[in-house]
Protein backbone atom coordinates (compact mmCIF):
# COMPACT_ATOMS: atom_id res chain seq x y z
CA UNK A 1 0.00 0.00 0.00
CA UNK A 2 1.45 3.36 -1.03
CA UNK A 3 1.99 5.66 1.90
CA UNK A 4 2.74 9.30 2.31
CA UNK A 5 6.32 10.19 2.94
CA UNK A 6 6.88 10.25 6.71
CA UNK A 7 6.96 13.77 8.10
CA UNK A 8 10.24 14.16 10.04
CA UNK A 9 10.15 14.85 13.76
CA UNK A 10 12.34 17.40 15.52
CA UNK A 11 14.97 14.88 16.59
CA UNK A 12 15.05 13.46 13.06
CA UNK A 13 16.20 16.78 11.57
CA UNK A 14 19.92 15.78 11.29
CA UNK A 15 18.82 12.76 9.26
CA UNK A 16 16.71 14.99 7.12
CA UNK A 17 19.61 17.32 6.44
CA UNK A 18 21.80 14.43 5.42
CA UNK A 19 19.08 12.95 3.25
CA UNK A 20 18.59 16.25 1.44
CA UNK A 21 22.34 16.51 0.86
CA UNK A 22 22.37 13.04 -0.68
CA UNK A 23 19.46 13.90 -2.93
CA UNK A 24 21.19 17.07 -4.09
CA UNK A 25 24.37 15.20 -4.93
CA UNK A 26 22.44 12.46 -6.70
CA UNK A 27 20.84 15.04 -8.97
CA UNK A 28 24.32 16.16 -10.00
CA UNK A 29 25.53 12.62 -10.46
CA UNK A 30 24.90 12.48 -14.24
CA UNK A 31 27.09 15.49 -14.95
CA UNK A 32 29.55 14.77 -12.12
CA UNK A 33 30.14 11.00 -11.94
CA UNK A 34 33.01 11.62 -9.54
CA UNK A 35 30.46 12.33 -6.79
CA UNK A 36 29.56 8.65 -6.56
CA UNK A 37 32.09 7.95 -3.83
CA UNK A 38 30.91 10.93 -1.78
CA UNK A 39 27.33 9.81 -2.09
CA UNK A 40 28.20 6.34 -0.95
CA UNK A 41 30.02 7.72 2.05
CA UNK A 42 27.11 9.95 2.92
CA UNK A 43 24.69 7.07 2.57
CA UNK A 44 26.78 5.00 4.93
CA UNK A 45 26.86 7.89 7.34
CA UNK A 46 23.08 8.19 6.97
CA UNK A 47 22.51 4.54 7.81
CA UNK A 48 24.76 4.76 10.84
CA UNK A 49 23.15 7.93 12.08
CA UNK A 50 19.70 6.49 11.61
CA UNK A 51 20.54 3.37 13.58
CA UNK A 52 22.20 5.21 16.39
CA UNK A 53 19.45 7.81 16.48
CA UNK A 54 16.66 5.27 16.84
CA UNK A 55 18.52 3.15 19.33
CA UNK A 56 19.22 6.08 21.64
CA UNK A 57 15.82 7.71 21.79
CA UNK A 58 14.83 9.72 24.81
CA UNK A 59 11.42 9.23 26.38
CA UNK A 60 10.29 12.39 24.76
CA UNK A 61 11.33 11.12 21.32
CA UNK A 62 9.27 7.97 21.82
CA UNK A 63 6.43 10.23 22.86
CA UNK A 64 6.80 12.19 19.63
CA UNK A 65 6.75 9.03 17.54
CA UNK A 66 3.78 7.67 19.51
CA UNK A 67 1.92 10.88 18.74
CA UNK A 68 3.11 11.17 15.15
CA UNK A 69 0.21 12.37 12.99
CA UNK A 70 0.90 9.58 10.48
CA UNK A 71 0.97 6.85 13.12
CA UNK A 72 -1.31 3.94 12.20
CA UNK A 73 -4.63 3.97 14.06
CA UNK A 74 -7.10 1.20 14.82
CA UNK A 75 -8.79 1.35 11.42
CA UNK A 76 -5.40 1.10 9.69
CA UNK A 77 -4.72 -2.15 11.50
CA UNK A 78 -8.21 -3.53 10.91
CA UNK A 79 -8.08 -2.93 7.16
CA UNK A 80 -4.77 -4.73 6.94
CA UNK A 81 -5.75 -7.66 9.13
CA UNK A 82 -9.07 -8.42 7.47
CA UNK A 83 -10.40 -6.35 4.58
CA UNK A 84 -13.85 -7.87 5.30
CA UNK A 85 -13.90 -6.92 8.97
CA UNK A 86 -17.42 -6.11 10.14
CA UNK A 87 -17.89 -2.96 12.16
CA UNK A 88 -20.42 -2.98 15.01
CA UNK A 89 -21.80 0.33 16.17
CA UNK A 90 -23.38 1.98 19.13
CA UNK A 91 -24.11 1.75 22.83
CA UNK A 92 -27.82 1.11 22.04
CA UNK A 93 -28.70 4.04 24.27
CA UNK A 94 -28.30 7.12 22.11
CA UNK A 95 -24.68 7.30 21.09
CA UNK A 96 -22.10 5.84 18.73
CA UNK A 97 -18.77 7.21 19.90
CA UNK A 98 -16.44 7.45 16.91
CA UNK A 99 -13.43 7.54 19.20
CA UNK A 100 -14.10 3.87 19.95
CA UNK A 101 -14.10 1.48 17.01
CA UNK A 102 -15.44 -2.05 17.40
CA UNK A 103 -15.50 -4.84 14.89
CA UNK A 104 -15.51 -8.55 14.19
CA UNK A 105 -12.24 -9.64 12.62
CA UNK A 106 -10.88 -12.89 11.19
CA UNK A 107 -7.14 -13.38 11.57
CA UNK A 108 -7.27 -16.68 9.72
CA UNK A 109 -9.60 -19.66 9.35
CA UNK A 110 -8.78 -20.73 12.86
CA UNK A 111 -8.80 -17.45 14.69
CA UNK A 112 -11.42 -14.73 14.92
CA UNK A 113 -11.83 -12.02 17.50
CA UNK A 114 -13.60 -8.87 18.52
CA UNK A 115 -11.35 -5.85 18.15
CA UNK A 116 -12.08 -2.76 20.24
CA UNK A 117 -9.80 0.20 19.78
CA UNK A 118 -9.59 3.93 20.18
CA UNK A 119 -9.41 6.00 17.01
CA UNK A 120 -7.82 9.43 16.70
CA UNK A 121 -8.82 10.41 13.16
CA UNK A 122 -6.44 11.33 10.38
CA UNK A 123 -7.63 14.60 8.83
CA UNK A 124 -9.10 17.49 10.78
CA UNK A 125 -12.73 16.50 10.26
CA UNK A 126 -12.02 12.93 11.26
CA UNK A 127 -10.07 14.17 14.27
CA UNK A 128 -13.06 16.21 15.39
CA UNK A 129 -15.46 13.36 14.74
CA UNK A 130 -13.21 11.10 16.81
CA UNK A 131 -12.70 13.80 19.44
CA UNK A 132 -8.93 13.39 18.98
CA UNK A 133 -9.13 9.87 20.29
CA UNK A 134 -10.68 10.81 23.62
CA UNK A 135 -13.76 8.66 24.26
CA UNK A 136 -16.86 9.89 26.01
CA UNK A 137 -18.46 7.67 28.68
CA UNK A 138 -20.72 6.38 25.91
CA UNK A 139 -17.65 5.12 24.06
CA UNK A 140 -16.64 3.00 27.02
CA UNK A 141 -20.20 1.73 27.33
CA UNK A 142 -20.23 0.83 23.63
CA UNK A 143 -17.03 -1.14 24.23
CA UNK A 144 -18.59 -2.82 27.26
CA UNK A 145 -21.66 -3.86 25.28
CA UNK A 146 -19.40 -5.62 22.83
CA UNK A 147 -17.19 -7.13 25.52
CA UNK A 148 -20.35 -8.80 26.84
CA UNK A 149 -21.27 -9.83 23.31
CA UNK A 150 -17.89 -11.50 22.87
CA UNK A 151 -18.17 -13.18 26.25
CA UNK A 152 -21.60 -14.57 25.37
CA UNK A 153 -20.34 -16.15 22.17
CA UNK A 154 -16.88 -17.17 23.35
CA UNK A 155 -15.09 -14.77 21.01
CA UNK A 156 -11.58 -13.64 22.08
CA UNK A 157 -11.04 -9.91 22.44
CA UNK A 158 -8.22 -7.68 21.23
CA UNK A 159 -8.04 -4.05 22.30
CA UNK A 160 -5.90 -1.40 20.64
CA UNK A 161 -4.98 1.55 22.80
CA UNK A 162 -4.00 4.94 21.43
CA UNK A 163 -5.65 7.72 23.39
CA UNK A 164 -4.57 10.84 25.27
CA UNK A 165 -7.18 9.76 27.81
CA UNK A 166 -10.89 9.83 28.55
CA UNK A 167 -12.44 13.12 27.46
CA UNK A 168 -12.48 15.69 30.28
CA UNK A 169 -15.63 17.60 29.37
CA UNK A 170 -18.81 18.85 30.97
CA UNK A 171 -21.08 16.25 29.41
CA UNK A 172 -18.54 13.54 30.08
CA UNK A 173 -18.69 14.37 33.79
CA UNK A 174 -22.47 14.63 33.69
CA UNK A 175 -22.68 11.21 32.13
CA UNK A 176 -20.30 9.82 34.72
CA UNK A 177 -17.03 9.26 32.94
CA UNK A 178 -15.53 7.83 36.14
CA UNK A 179 -18.25 5.22 36.44
CA UNK A 180 -17.97 4.25 32.77
CA UNK A 181 -14.28 3.54 33.28
CA UNK A 182 -14.69 1.83 36.65
CA UNK A 183 -17.40 -0.51 35.37
CA UNK A 184 -15.22 -1.54 32.44
CA UNK A 185 -12.33 -2.34 34.78
CA UNK A 186 -14.61 -4.54 36.85
CA UNK A 187 -16.36 -6.23 33.96
CA UNK A 188 -13.18 -6.85 31.96
CA UNK A 189 -11.65 -8.58 34.94
CA UNK A 190 -14.56 -11.01 35.04
CA UNK A 191 -14.49 -12.12 31.39
CA UNK A 192 -13.74 -15.75 30.62
CA UNK A 193 -12.62 -15.22 27.03
CA UNK A 194 -8.98 -14.32 26.30
CA UNK A 195 -8.39 -10.58 26.15
CA UNK A 196 -5.20 -9.00 24.87
CA UNK A 197 -4.38 -5.34 24.59
CA UNK A 198 -1.79 -3.60 22.50
CA UNK A 199 -0.72 -0.06 23.24
CA UNK A 200 -0.19 1.16 19.69
CA UNK A 201 0.42 4.84 20.44
CA UNK A 202 -0.42 6.77 23.58
CA UNK A 203 -1.71 4.85 26.58
CA UNK A 204 -3.32 7.71 28.45
CA UNK A 205 -4.31 6.95 32.02
CA UNK A 206 -7.73 5.61 33.08
CA UNK A 207 -9.09 6.21 29.62
CA UNK A 208 -6.62 3.67 28.26
CA UNK A 209 -7.01 1.23 31.12
CA UNK A 210 -10.78 1.16 30.58
CA UNK A 211 -10.12 -1.12 27.61
CA UNK A 212 -6.81 -2.41 28.96
CA UNK A 213 -7.53 -4.90 31.74
CA UNK A 214 -6.39 -7.91 29.80
CA UNK A 215 -4.58 -11.24 30.00
CA UNK A 216 -1.63 -9.87 28.09
CA UNK A 217 -0.53 -6.30 27.54
CA UNK A 218 1.78 -5.66 24.62
CA UNK A 219 3.30 -2.36 23.60
CA UNK A 220 4.63 -1.21 20.30
CA UNK A 221 8.31 -0.30 20.56
CA UNK A 222 7.77 3.45 20.43
CA UNK A 223 4.43 3.63 22.22
CA UNK A 224 4.06 5.09 25.70
CA UNK A 225 1.81 4.36 28.65
CA UNK A 226 1.40 6.59 31.67
CA UNK A 227 -0.81 7.50 34.59
CA UNK A 228 -0.95 11.13 33.51
CA UNK A 229 0.39 12.92 30.45
CA UNK A 230 3.99 14.16 30.86
CA UNK A 231 2.62 17.68 30.30
CA UNK A 232 0.13 17.23 33.15
CA UNK A 233 2.75 15.72 35.42
CA UNK A 234 5.20 18.57 34.71
CA UNK A 235 2.65 21.25 35.43
CA UNK A 236 1.56 19.66 38.70
CA UNK A 237 4.85 18.40 40.14
CA UNK A 238 7.30 20.87 38.62
CA UNK A 239 4.71 23.64 38.33
CA UNK A 240 6.14 24.27 34.89
CA UNK A 241 4.89 23.12 31.54
CA UNK A 242 8.46 23.25 30.26
CA UNK A 243 9.58 20.29 32.34
CA UNK A 244 7.90 17.74 30.06
CA UNK A 245 11.23 16.13 29.30
CA UNK A 246 11.98 15.60 32.99
CA UNK A 247 8.46 14.37 33.71
CA UNK A 248 8.54 11.92 30.81
CA UNK A 249 11.84 10.45 32.01
CA UNK A 250 10.81 10.34 35.66
CA UNK A 251 7.51 8.55 35.03
CA UNK A 252 9.08 5.79 32.90
CA UNK A 253 6.57 5.84 30.14
CA UNK A 254 8.32 3.86 27.40
CA UNK A 255 7.65 0.29 26.39
CA UNK A 256 11.03 -1.06 27.50
CA UNK A 257 10.85 0.67 30.88
CA UNK A 258 7.34 -0.61 31.55
CA UNK A 259 8.40 -4.09 30.51
CA UNK A 260 11.20 -3.83 33.04
CA UNK A 261 8.67 -2.82 35.71
CA UNK A 262 6.87 -6.10 35.02
CA UNK A 263 3.60 -4.47 34.03
CA UNK A 264 3.48 -5.53 30.40
CA UNK A 265 4.20 -8.83 28.72
CA UNK A 266 6.03 -7.92 25.57
CA UNK A 267 7.29 -5.25 23.22
CA UNK A 268 6.43 -5.44 19.53
CA UNK A 269 9.14 -4.25 17.17
CA UNK A 270 8.33 -1.41 14.82
CA UNK A 271 9.79 -0.66 11.38
CA UNK A 272 12.90 1.50 11.68
CA UNK A 273 11.80 5.04 12.41
CA UNK A 274 8.41 4.00 13.71
CA UNK A 275 5.22 2.29 12.59
CA UNK A 276 4.32 5.14 10.24
CA UNK A 277 7.35 4.33 8.10
CA UNK A 278 5.73 1.05 7.08
CA UNK A 279 2.16 0.46 8.23
CA UNK A 280 1.96 -2.92 6.52
CA UNK A 281 4.93 -4.21 8.42
CA UNK A 282 3.67 -2.71 11.67
CA UNK A 283 0.28 -4.36 11.17
CA UNK A 284 1.92 -7.68 10.34
CA UNK A 285 4.11 -7.51 13.45
CA UNK A 286 1.15 -6.81 15.70
CA UNK A 287 -0.92 -9.54 14.09
CA UNK A 288 1.86 -12.08 14.54
CA UNK A 289 2.21 -11.21 18.21
CA UNK A 290 -1.54 -11.34 18.78
CA UNK A 291 -1.91 -14.66 17.00
CA UNK A 292 0.81 -16.20 19.12
CA UNK A 293 -0.60 -14.91 22.40
CA UNK A 294 -4.23 -15.70 21.58
CA UNK A 295 -3.44 -19.25 20.55
CA UNK A 296 -1.60 -19.88 23.78
CA UNK A 297 -4.47 -18.43 25.85
CA UNK A 298 -7.06 -20.47 23.97
CA UNK A 299 -5.49 -23.56 25.47
CA UNK A 300 -6.81 -22.50 28.87
CA UNK A 301 -10.29 -23.13 30.22
CA UNK A 302 -12.63 -20.14 30.67
CA UNK A 303 -12.14 -20.21 34.46
CA UNK A 304 -8.38 -20.36 34.01
CA UNK A 305 -8.50 -17.43 31.61
CA UNK A 306 -10.28 -15.27 34.16
CA UNK A 307 -7.96 -16.36 36.95
CA UNK A 308 -4.91 -15.71 34.76
CA UNK A 309 -6.04 -12.13 34.17
CA UNK A 310 -6.89 -11.42 37.78
CA UNK A 311 -3.58 -12.86 39.00
CA UNK A 312 -1.73 -10.60 36.63
CA UNK A 313 -3.10 -7.42 38.21
CA UNK A 314 -3.13 -8.84 41.73
CA UNK A 315 0.65 -8.92 41.64
CA UNK A 316 1.30 -5.38 40.41
CA UNK A 317 2.53 -2.92 43.02
CA UNK A 318 5.63 -2.02 45.02
CA UNK A 319 5.43 -1.72 48.80
CA UNK A 320 7.23 -2.62 51.98
CA UNK A 321 5.70 -4.38 54.92
CA UNK A 322 7.28 -3.38 58.22
CA UNK A 323 6.63 -5.54 61.23
Amino acid at each position, binding site marked *: MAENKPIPLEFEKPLEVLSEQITRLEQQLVSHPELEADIEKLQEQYSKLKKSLYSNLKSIDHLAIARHPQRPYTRDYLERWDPNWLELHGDRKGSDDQAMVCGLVRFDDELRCLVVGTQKGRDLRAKQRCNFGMPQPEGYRKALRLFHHAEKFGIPIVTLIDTP*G*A*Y*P*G*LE*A*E*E*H*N*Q*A*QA*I*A*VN*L*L*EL*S*GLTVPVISVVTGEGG*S*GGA*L*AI*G*VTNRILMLEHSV*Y*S*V*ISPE*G*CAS*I*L*WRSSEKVL*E*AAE*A*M*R*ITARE*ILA*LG*VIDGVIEEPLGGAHHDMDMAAANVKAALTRELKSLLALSPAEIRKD*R*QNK*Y*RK*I*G*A*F*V*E*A*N
Partner: protein
Amino acid sequence: MAMDLKDWFSNRRKRRERENLVPKQPLSNEEYCALWKQCFQCREMLYARDLRHNLHVCPKCQYHFRIGAEERIEQIADPDSFVEIDQKMDSADPLEFVDTDAYSKRQKQAQKKSGLYEAVLTGTCRINGHDAALGVMDFAFFGGSMGSVVGEKVTRLIEKAIEEHIPLIIVSSSGGARMQEGILSLMQLAKTSSALKDLSDAGLLYISILSEPTFGGVTASFAMLGDIIIAERGARVGFAGRRVIEQTIRQKLPADFQTAEYLLKHGQVDMVLDRLQIKETLANMIQFHQPLVEDPNRAFSKNGRSKVGSRTKK
Protein backbone atom coordinates in the same frame (compact mmCIF):
# COMPACT_ATOMS: atom_id res chain seq x y z
CA MET B 1 -5.58 12.29 36.68
CA ALA B 2 -5.02 14.57 39.64
CA MET B 3 -7.48 17.23 40.66
CA ASP B 4 -6.67 20.80 41.31
CA LEU B 5 -6.08 21.76 44.92
CA LYS B 6 -7.13 25.30 44.23
CA ASP B 7 -10.57 24.06 43.34
CA TRP B 8 -11.75 23.05 46.72
CA PHE B 9 -10.02 25.73 48.66
CA SER B 10 -11.51 28.44 46.49
CA ASN B 11 -14.97 27.06 47.04
CA ARG B 12 -14.63 27.59 50.76
CA ARG B 13 -13.64 31.17 50.32
CA LYS B 14 -16.56 31.79 48.07
CA ARG B 15 -19.10 30.85 50.70
CA ARG B 16 -20.40 34.02 52.20
CA GLU B 17 -20.60 34.88 55.80
CA ARG B 18 -24.22 34.93 56.87
CA GLU B 19 -25.33 38.34 58.02
CA ASN B 20 -27.26 37.32 61.08
CA LEU B 21 -24.38 35.43 62.61
CA VAL B 22 -21.75 36.61 65.07
CA PRO B 23 -19.09 38.80 63.42
CA LYS B 24 -15.62 37.33 62.87
CA GLN B 25 -13.28 37.27 65.75
CA PRO B 26 -9.57 37.24 64.97
CA LEU B 27 -7.64 34.38 66.53
CA SER B 28 -5.39 35.54 69.34
CA ASN B 29 -2.92 32.87 70.42
CA GLU B 30 -2.06 29.21 70.10
CA GLU B 31 -3.93 28.12 73.17
CA TYR B 32 -7.00 29.82 71.91
CA CYS B 33 -6.62 28.09 68.55
CA ALA B 34 -6.51 24.67 70.13
CA LEU B 35 -9.73 25.31 72.01
CA TRP B 36 -11.62 27.19 69.34
CA LYS B 37 -12.05 26.68 65.65
CA GLN B 38 -13.61 29.08 63.20
CA CYS B 39 -16.19 27.78 60.72
CA PHE B 40 -14.98 28.19 57.14
CA GLN B 41 -18.47 28.97 55.97
CA CYS B 42 -20.32 31.05 58.58
CA ARG B 43 -17.19 32.19 60.48
CA GLU B 44 -18.76 31.21 63.77
CA MET B 45 -16.22 30.47 66.51
CA LEU B 46 -16.77 26.90 67.63
CA TYR B 47 -15.55 25.21 70.77
CA ALA B 48 -13.35 22.35 69.55
CA ARG B 49 -14.90 19.72 71.81
CA ASP B 50 -18.43 20.65 70.78
CA LEU B 51 -17.41 20.55 67.15
CA ARG B 52 -16.02 17.09 67.62
CA HIS B 53 -19.15 15.92 69.38
CA ASN B 54 -21.09 17.20 66.39
CA LEU B 55 -18.88 15.06 64.09
CA HIS B 56 -17.06 18.15 62.84
CA VAL B 57 -20.18 19.63 61.36
CA CYS B 58 -20.80 23.28 62.19
CA PRO B 59 -23.91 23.39 64.38
CA LYS B 60 -24.82 26.81 63.00
CA CYS B 61 -24.59 26.35 59.23
CA GLN B 62 -24.04 22.59 58.81
CA TYR B 63 -20.69 23.15 57.12
CA HIS B 64 -18.91 19.77 56.99
CA PHE B 65 -15.26 20.15 58.06
CA ARG B 66 -12.89 17.76 56.35
CA ILE B 67 -11.92 15.01 58.76
CA GLY B 68 -9.13 12.50 58.96
CA ALA B 69 -9.41 8.75 58.63
CA GLU B 70 -9.20 8.17 62.36
CA GLU B 71 -12.01 10.56 63.14
CA ARG B 72 -14.10 8.99 60.42
CA ILE B 73 -13.58 5.54 61.82
CA GLU B 74 -14.53 6.81 65.26
CA GLN B 75 -17.74 8.17 63.78
CA ILE B 76 -18.72 5.00 61.95
CA ALA B 77 -17.37 2.05 63.93
CA ASP B 78 -18.81 0.98 67.27
CA PRO B 79 -16.46 2.02 70.10
CA ASP B 80 -13.28 -0.07 70.20
CA SER B 81 -14.56 -2.37 67.48
CA PHE B 82 -12.13 -1.33 64.72
CA VAL B 83 -9.32 -3.80 64.22
CA GLU B 84 -6.80 -2.46 61.77
CA ILE B 85 -5.09 -4.69 59.21
CA ASP B 86 -1.90 -4.06 57.23
CA GLN B 87 -1.16 -1.20 59.58
CA LYS B 88 2.46 -0.66 58.69
CA MET B 89 2.51 -1.17 54.97
CA ASP B 90 4.82 1.45 53.55
CA SER B 91 5.39 2.92 50.10
CA ALA B 92 8.37 1.72 48.14
CA ASP B 93 9.91 3.98 45.52
CA PRO B 94 9.87 1.72 42.48
CA LEU B 95 10.72 4.47 39.98
CA GLU B 96 13.26 6.25 42.23
CA PHE B 97 11.19 9.23 41.35
CA VAL B 98 12.55 12.74 41.72
CA ASP B 99 10.80 15.93 40.75
CA THR B 100 11.80 19.07 42.60
CA ASP B 101 12.44 16.72 45.48
CA ALA B 102 12.73 12.95 45.89
CA TYR B 103 9.56 10.86 46.33
CA SER B 104 11.18 8.92 49.15
CA LYS B 105 11.78 12.14 51.04
CA ARG B 106 8.29 13.42 50.37
CA GLN B 107 6.87 10.20 51.76
CA LYS B 108 8.73 10.57 55.03
CA GLN B 109 7.56 14.17 55.28
CA ALA B 110 3.97 13.16 54.63
CA GLN B 111 4.18 10.49 57.31
CA LYS B 112 5.61 12.91 59.83
CA LYS B 113 3.12 15.62 59.03
CA SER B 114 0.02 13.43 59.01
CA GLY B 115 0.97 10.82 61.58
CA LEU B 116 -0.19 8.20 59.05
CA TYR B 117 1.70 5.47 57.24
CA GLU B 118 -0.30 5.88 54.08
CA ALA B 119 -3.44 7.39 52.59
CA VAL B 120 -5.86 4.70 53.70
CA LEU B 121 -6.70 2.88 56.92
CA THR B 122 -8.31 -0.54 56.61
CA GLY B 123 -9.74 -3.05 59.00
CA THR B 124 -12.82 -4.76 60.34
CA CYS B 125 -15.31 -3.27 62.73
CA ARG B 126 -18.88 -3.39 63.93
CA ILE B 127 -21.51 -0.85 62.97
CA ASN B 128 -24.43 -0.90 65.37
CA GLY B 129 -23.53 -4.50 65.98
CA HIS B 130 -23.12 -5.52 62.34
CA ASP B 131 -19.73 -6.82 61.25
CA ALA B 132 -18.19 -4.96 58.34
CA ALA B 133 -14.92 -4.42 56.52
CA LEU B 134 -14.11 -0.71 56.60
CA GLY B 135 -11.60 1.30 54.60
CA VAL B 136 -11.17 5.04 55.05
CA MET B 137 -8.96 7.28 52.95
CA ASP B 138 -7.24 10.33 54.37
CA PHE B 139 -6.72 13.34 52.17
CA ALA B 140 -4.10 14.73 54.54
CA PHE B 141 -1.63 12.09 53.40
CA PHE B 142 -0.35 12.95 49.91
CA GLY B 143 -3.74 14.27 48.85
CA GLY B 144 -5.24 10.85 49.31
CA SER B 145 -3.51 9.74 46.15
CA MET B 146 -3.58 6.06 45.22
CA GLY B 147 -0.24 4.35 44.87
CA SER B 148 0.74 0.74 45.39
CA VAL B 149 0.05 0.80 49.13
CA VAL B 150 -3.47 2.17 48.81
CA GLY B 151 -4.17 -0.30 46.00
CA GLU B 152 -2.80 -3.23 47.95
CA LYS B 153 -4.49 -2.33 51.22
CA VAL B 154 -7.88 -1.79 49.57
CA THR B 155 -7.50 -5.07 47.68
CA ARG B 156 -6.65 -6.95 50.86
CA LEU B 157 -9.61 -5.34 52.58
CA ILE B 158 -11.89 -6.59 49.82
CA GLU B 159 -10.38 -10.04 50.12
CA LYS B 160 -10.93 -9.89 53.89
CA ALA B 161 -14.61 -9.07 53.33
CA ILE B 162 -14.94 -12.05 50.98
CA GLU B 163 -13.14 -14.34 53.39
CA GLU B 164 -15.22 -13.29 56.39
CA HIS B 165 -18.38 -12.94 54.34
CA ILE B 166 -19.12 -9.45 55.63
CA PRO B 167 -20.20 -6.29 53.84
CA LEU B 168 -17.63 -3.76 52.69
CA ILE B 169 -17.64 -0.03 53.30
CA ILE B 170 -15.09 2.35 51.82
CA VAL B 171 -14.98 6.08 52.50
CA SER B 172 -13.08 7.72 49.64
CA SER B 173 -11.19 10.98 49.58
CA SER B 174 -8.55 11.43 46.95
CA GLY B 175 -6.98 13.76 44.46
CA GLY B 176 -6.30 10.87 42.08
CA ALA B 177 -3.43 8.58 41.29
CA ARG B 178 0.05 8.77 42.87
CA MET B 179 2.01 10.14 39.91
CA GLN B 180 5.30 9.34 41.59
CA GLU B 181 4.62 5.63 41.13
CA GLY B 182 3.91 6.03 37.43
CA ILE B 183 2.19 3.18 35.64
CA LEU B 184 2.17 1.12 38.85
CA SER B 185 -0.26 3.56 40.40
CA LEU B 186 -2.54 3.36 37.35
CA MET B 187 -2.64 -0.42 37.64
CA GLN B 188 -4.06 -0.15 41.16
CA LEU B 189 -7.34 0.87 39.53
CA ALA B 190 -7.42 -2.49 37.79
CA LYS B 191 -6.32 -4.43 40.85
CA THR B 192 -8.96 -3.01 43.18
CA SER B 193 -11.75 -3.23 40.59
CA SER B 194 -10.84 -6.80 39.85
CA ALA B 195 -11.10 -7.69 43.54
CA LEU B 196 -14.50 -6.00 43.64
CA LYS B 197 -15.68 -8.28 40.84
CA ASP B 198 -15.02 -11.23 43.13
CA LEU B 199 -16.82 -9.50 45.99
CA SER B 200 -19.80 -8.88 43.77
CA ASP B 201 -19.85 -12.46 42.55
CA ALA B 202 -19.86 -13.54 46.19
CA GLY B 203 -23.10 -11.59 46.62
CA LEU B 204 -21.67 -9.30 49.26
CA LEU B 205 -22.86 -5.76 49.80
CA TYR B 206 -20.48 -2.91 49.06
CA ILE B 207 -21.36 0.61 50.14
CA SER B 208 -19.16 3.39 48.81
CA ILE B 209 -19.09 6.75 50.58
CA LEU B 210 -17.76 9.71 48.64
CA SER B 211 -16.34 12.44 50.83
CA GLU B 212 -14.82 15.80 49.95
CA PRO B 213 -12.88 15.58 47.65
CA THR B 214 -12.85 12.44 45.49
CA PHE B 215 -11.32 12.67 42.01
CA GLY B 216 -9.37 10.87 39.33
CA GLY B 217 -8.38 7.26 39.58
CA VAL B 218 -10.12 6.56 42.86
CA THR B 219 -13.44 7.78 41.45
CA ALA B 220 -12.74 5.82 38.27
CA SER B 221 -12.36 2.58 40.21
CA PHE B 222 -13.64 1.46 43.60
CA ALA B 223 -15.40 4.68 44.59
CA MET B 224 -17.91 4.37 41.72
CA LEU B 225 -18.46 0.64 42.05
CA GLY B 226 -20.63 0.52 45.17
CA ASP B 227 -23.90 -1.38 45.16
CA ILE B 228 -25.02 1.69 47.04
CA ILE B 229 -23.18 4.98 46.62
CA ILE B 230 -23.54 7.75 49.17
CA ALA B 231 -22.18 11.26 48.72
CA GLU B 232 -21.54 13.13 51.93
CA ARG B 233 -22.97 16.64 52.05
CA GLY B 234 -20.37 19.12 50.85
CA ALA B 235 -18.34 16.59 48.89
CA ARG B 236 -17.09 17.36 45.42
CA VAL B 237 -16.57 14.33 43.25
CA GLY B 238 -15.59 13.79 39.66
CA PHE B 239 -13.21 12.27 37.20
CA ALA B 240 -11.39 15.31 35.84
CA GLY B 241 -10.82 18.41 37.92
CA ARG B 242 -12.77 21.60 37.33
CA ARG B 243 -9.81 23.51 35.93
CA VAL B 244 -8.77 20.81 33.49
CA ILE B 245 -12.30 20.77 32.14
CA GLU B 246 -12.54 24.55 31.91
CA GLN B 247 -9.31 24.58 29.94
CA THR B 248 -10.62 21.86 27.64
CA ILE B 249 -14.06 23.21 26.88
CA ARG B 250 -13.21 26.92 27.30
CA GLN B 251 -16.50 27.52 29.02
CA LYS B 252 -17.66 28.37 32.50
CA LEU B 253 -18.93 25.40 34.41
CA PRO B 254 -22.18 25.48 36.40
CA ALA B 255 -21.81 26.67 39.99
CA ASP B 256 -22.94 23.35 41.47
CA PHE B 257 -20.65 21.35 39.16
CA GLN B 258 -19.38 18.15 40.80
CA THR B 259 -21.08 18.87 44.13
CA ALA B 260 -22.93 16.11 45.94
CA GLU B 261 -26.25 17.59 44.82
CA TYR B 262 -25.05 17.69 41.21
CA LEU B 263 -24.11 14.02 41.42
CA LEU B 264 -27.56 13.21 42.74
CA LYS B 265 -29.28 15.20 40.00
CA HIS B 266 -27.24 13.39 37.38
CA GLY B 267 -28.04 9.97 38.76
CA GLN B 268 -24.52 9.17 39.91
CA VAL B 269 -25.22 8.52 43.59
CA ASP B 270 -28.08 6.88 45.43
CA MET B 271 -28.29 9.57 48.08
CA VAL B 272 -26.67 12.59 49.67
CA LEU B 273 -26.36 12.36 53.43
CA ASP B 274 -25.39 14.69 56.21
CA ARG B 275 -22.49 13.32 58.20
CA LEU B 276 -24.78 12.83 61.17
CA GLN B 277 -26.98 10.43 59.19
CA ILE B 278 -24.23 8.20 57.87
CA LYS B 279 -23.74 5.65 60.63
CA GLU B 280 -27.45 5.00 61.13
CA THR B 281 -28.00 4.67 57.40
CA LEU B 282 -25.11 2.25 57.00
CA ALA B 283 -26.41 0.05 59.80
CA ASN B 284 -29.91 0.24 58.36
CA MET B 285 -28.78 -0.76 54.89
CA ILE B 286 -26.55 -3.58 56.07
CA GLN B 287 -29.50 -4.95 57.96
CA PHE B 288 -31.84 -4.49 55.00
CA HIS B 289 -29.57 -6.45 52.69
CA GLN B 290 -29.29 -9.44 54.99
CA PRO B 291 -31.59 -12.33 54.22
CA LEU B 292 -34.50 -11.76 56.58
CA VAL B 293 -35.77 -15.28 56.72
CA GLU B 294 -33.43 -17.71 58.40
CA ASP B 295 -36.01 -20.46 58.64
CA PRO B 296 -34.42 -23.38 56.78
CA ASN B 297 -37.85 -24.69 55.81
CA ARG B 298 -38.51 -21.74 53.55
CA ALA B 299 -37.27 -22.40 50.11
CA PHE B 300 -36.38 -18.82 49.33
CA SER B 301 -33.74 -18.44 51.99
CA LYS B 302 -31.89 -21.63 51.26
CA ASN B 303 -32.09 -21.98 47.54
CA GLY B 304 -28.90 -21.39 45.67
CA ARG B 305 -28.84 -17.71 46.36
CA SER B 306 -25.59 -16.82 48.05
CA LYS B 307 -25.86 -15.59 51.60
CA VAL B 308 -25.48 -11.88 51.84
CA GLY B 309 -25.18 -9.22 54.48
CA SER B 310 -23.41 -9.51 57.79
CA ARG B 311 -23.61 -11.58 60.88
CA THR B 312 -24.94 -9.60 63.78
CA LYS B 313 -23.32 -9.80 67.16
CA LYS B 314 -25.87 -10.04 70.00
